[in-house]
């Protein structure tokens, strides 16, 4: 055996850099380009009316997308209210109780499948399940579709975060005489809290930009979402409709809505980063 020569190693190192650094830069460049386009074309559309007024009829200037903003918020909240508890509980089951059981393995496998399922398929599924049954598009259906998309994200992060909690902490609670469920809820869950919040925020960020599932469920509307039992206005389908329209005013509003969603997702993602950093600086011991 001979030692590898230093020059050989150096050359390999150089070559790797020559390939990877441009790849990384290309990724950043594309992202910057998208951001630039969205900001430069969308910023002009954002004024007070955009946030407070209903849309105007086709071809008429002015108006806003207040109803779509409200509708998107409503359905995201609805999805969070449905998806989070189910995801949290299933995640607790996987990490704390099921572990290696057959049911747990099956749930894990299904979750991976669901994670990789194109969102349009979830949209069609909810269309068949709710829209066809009830006979009309609705905000409910939209919220349910988004909830299904959130579920695997919340579930996996919950399981991962609970697995990060050291066994000694569980054992300490049990050794004091705590029943298993109580140890889980009062000690283990609390130790993983910030990680769980991160998972929920990431799931919210993931679904808030979805279009396809809403196209089949909530559809869209020009009016205020007075109840969510009817077609409900939302930003993403509005972007889809407006961007395809021949009207310059609508196209500009589509850019404005794109900017709004991008900023919204950015804020949620940054928030989740912050909670994560918080978690790292205050690990459970020392």
């Amino acid at each position: 055996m001979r030692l590898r020569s230093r020059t050989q190693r150096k050359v390999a190192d150089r070559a790797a850099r020559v390939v990877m650094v441009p790849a990384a830069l290309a990724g950043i460049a594309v992202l910057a380009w998208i951001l630039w386009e969205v900001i430069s074309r969308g910023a002009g559309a954002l004024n007070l009316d955009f946030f407070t007024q209903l849309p105007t009829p086709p071809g008429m200037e002015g108006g806003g997308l207040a109803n779509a903003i409200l509708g998107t918020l409503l359905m995201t909240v609805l999805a969070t209210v449905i998806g989070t508890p189910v995801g949290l509980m299933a995640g607790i089951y996987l990490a704390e109780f099921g572990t290696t059981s057959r049911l747990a393995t099956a749930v894990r496998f299904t979750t991976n499948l669901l994670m990789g399922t194109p969102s349009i398929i979830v949209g069609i599924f909810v269309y068949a399940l709710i829209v066809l049954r009830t006979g009309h598009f609705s905000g409910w259906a939209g919220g349910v579709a988004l909830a299904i998309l959130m579920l695997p994200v919340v579930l996996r992060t919950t399981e991962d975060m609970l697995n990060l909690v050291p066994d000694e902490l569980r054992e300490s609670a049990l050794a004091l005489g705590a029943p298993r469920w109580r140890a889980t809820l009062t000690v283990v869950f609390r130790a993983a809290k910030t990680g769980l919040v991160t998972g929920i925020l990431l799931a919210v960020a993931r679904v808030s930009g979805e279009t396809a599932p809403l196209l089949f469920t909530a559809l869209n509307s020009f009016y205020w979402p007075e109840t969510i039992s009817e077609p409900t206005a939302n930003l993403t389908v509005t972007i889809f409709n407006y961007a395809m329209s021949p009207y310059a005013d609508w196209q500009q509003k589509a850019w404005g809505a794109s900017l709004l969603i991008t900023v919204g997702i950015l804020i949620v993602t940054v928030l989740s980063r912050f909670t994560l950093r918080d978690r790292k600086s205050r690990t459970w011991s020392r």
Partner: protein
Amino acid sequence: MNRAGSAEEARSLPSKVSVRNLNFYYGGQQALFDNNIDIPEKRVTAIIGPSGCGKSTHIRVYNRIYELYRTHRAEGQVVIDGKNILLPSVDLIDLRKRVGMIFQRPTPFPMTIFDNIAYGLKLHYRVGRTELSDRVEDALKRGALWDEVKDKLGEPANALSGGQQQRLCIARAIATEPELILMDEPCSAIDPVATAKIEDLIQTLRDNYTVVLVTHNMQQAARVSDFTAFFYKGYIIEFGATKQIFTNPAERETEDYITGRFG
């Protein structure tokens, strides 16, 4: 300072725990072989032996904490206060109230100092607010931590130093009034000054509790324990008064270990 027990005393003292033919398995792998031992009541018993010899495995049977893991299995008898606690009919919550445990790394719960101590109390007792704070104060005093934390009971327990966290865990275990306290290398993650404080604390615990202390530190065993058991490869090789084990061991393996020839 050490009222070390004698061989005669070991036989005459009532035993808190009587272990008979205890075998322990991690899945298919056996870790304890035919363990037999009588732990004297209201004394400190040290468990020593080389790494991997089964010290932790042995004491983790006393509160059946190993049952958290499906594949871990114990066979034989562990009689505490006249009752075999390995029987399925035993109420685990009641058992764990009577048998406290301290771990190698401090395990403060992610809550305030006060709530850490109150946690165990609230599990087992219905207590009003004033009684609760009296009990918390009492436990922290017995854990030799009160003076250091009395002004910051509302702060997160994670903010304490490692040694303080470990005394907090001891106070938390004491708060529920256990009779037997198991300690698995409680000083291995903390500095010498903090270790000395915990050793002093263990000395005072002896008056009211039975203590089983797993330790790698031979001087510590000699300093704080009345009786010592030497474990080797899953077997209990020798058990007796600490003084006798350290000055005149009966078995060659024991002698080799305490003179530092292996381990």
